[in-house]
């Protein structure tokens, strides 16, 4: 990517926004280090709440389709997230769901195991640090003598970005690898190598196991599963062969297998590989063949060591999965 400022090509207009997110995705943009200067050389940042003071009304006043590229990170949790997703969709030529939360729901998506009511009850009544004898809960609108105060409405469900607005591309990861962002950004600036709309970009077609350097054999029969803290990892054998559940077989590569290199099993933030709509189902299918027992009682015993299938297999993908939420 040329960093020459005399480049006559007009700069593209770039917006970065966060919905229900931790801020890690925005930091991953900064993690491009000196390459950030290349981005700034080729793009004018028109909106980026973490770094710039631009108000929502300024964005709303922009002409439609005037932003070339929007990186939207975070899931849609409340009416403010939804409103901004819709505004940015209208103002942007290309809208990218950036990171696991926007792509599949991410960690905030685990709230779909509960309902709005259960969450409010826990947060405003039951939690150990809460003193709320009158059981006051947030309300969307509140009348005071100066006028009406309002806050965004908290939805019952967490949504992926694609469930709210049309998305052009998806970049997975929690957060996405900064190197991948540079590649995708270059492709969008130059227009070269852009896949069809709706593609997952900045990731590989193969699973994480493909790039994993740990020793693997065909012997993947397990008598008992361990949570990572229950076992001393030998730092070289495949995690699954040691009995630690690693999401590698059901996860797209592209992150550089960083967790496993750091001696931690894959947690699946890059989402399912092409062709499998539901990462947890894929993983349960794989685990099913690994359980080393044929008698129902023995199988039950082994499955008991998988304590929380929903939270483990769908850690980053519950709202985007087939069932989407706990049925209440």
């Amino acid at each position, binding site marked *: 990517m040329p960093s020459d400022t005399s480049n006559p090509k007009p700069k593209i207009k770039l917006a970065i926004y966060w919905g229900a997110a931790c801020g890690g995705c925005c930091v991953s943009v900064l993690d491009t280090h000196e390459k950030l200067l290349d981005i700034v050389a080729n793009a004018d940042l028109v909106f980026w709440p973490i770094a710039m003071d631009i108000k929502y009304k300024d964005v709303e006043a922009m002409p439609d389709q005037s932003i070339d590229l929007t990186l939207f990170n975070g899931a*849609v949790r409340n009416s403010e997230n*939804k409103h901004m997703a*819709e505004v940015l969709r209208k103002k942007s030529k290309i809208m990218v769901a950036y990171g696991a939360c926007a792509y599949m729901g991410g960690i905030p998506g685990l709230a779909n*195991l509960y309902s709005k009511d259960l969450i409010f009850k826990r947060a405003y009544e039951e939690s150990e640090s809460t003193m709320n004898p009158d059981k006051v809960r947030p309300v969307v609108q509140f009348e005071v003598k100066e006028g009406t105060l309002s806050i965004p409405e908290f*939805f*019952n*469900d967490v*949504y992926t970005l694609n*469930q*709210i*607005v049309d998305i052009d591309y998806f970049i997975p990861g929690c957060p996405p690898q900064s190197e991948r962002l540079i590649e995708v950004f270059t492709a969008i600036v130059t227009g070269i190598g852009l896949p069809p709309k709706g593609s997952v970009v900045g990731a590989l077609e193969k699973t994480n196991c493909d790039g994993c350097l740990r020793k693997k054999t065909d012997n993947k029969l397990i008598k008992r599963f361990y949570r990572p803290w229950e076992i001393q990892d030998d730092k070289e054998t495949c995690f699954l062969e040691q009995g630690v559940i690693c999401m590698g077989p059901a996860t797209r590569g592209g992150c550089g297998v960083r967790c496993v290199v750091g001696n931690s099993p894959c947690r699946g933030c890059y989402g399912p590989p092409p062709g*499998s*709509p*539901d990462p*947890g*189902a*894929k993983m*349960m*299918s794989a*685990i*099913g*063949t690994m*359980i080393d*027992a*044929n008698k*129902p009682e023995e*199988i*039950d015993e082994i*499955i008991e060591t*998988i304590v*929380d*299938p*929903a939270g483990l*297999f769908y850690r980053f993908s519950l709202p985007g*999965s*087939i*069932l*989407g*939420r*706990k*049925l*209440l």
Partner: protein
Amino acid sequence: MSYRPTIVAFLCNWCAYTGADLAGTSRLRYAPNIRIIRVMCSGRIEPTFILKAFQQGADGVLICGCHPGDCHYQEGNYKCLRRFKLIQKYVDQMGIEKDRLQLEWISASEGRQFAELVNNMTKTLLILGPSKIKSSLEVEHLKQ
């Protein structure tokens, strides 16, 4: 309209489907709530199939394969059993009652047992009531 449960059943080609066929050719009467999908082996049934069936409104999902030791492909039914146990734990966590997902072994000669199984499962589902997936998904449709 009164509630009539829908059961999506995945039957293996060699034992269970033949057993269901026998129930038919023997002119046994059983509950008409079942929708049968034939697969070559119960080991072919991916968790995705089961979840998709529930997502699209099935009140129950029934899996039938050959008896242990009788699998046409040696051990497909054991793989099915292990996956079934795991996915049953998952769907239970997701608020789908365990009894909505059942696994039974049906041999090619067990037409009568198949008919009874369908009747019993239909009864169980009548007691459980309709699946909550419809009401759960109808709550909010936000996309414009």
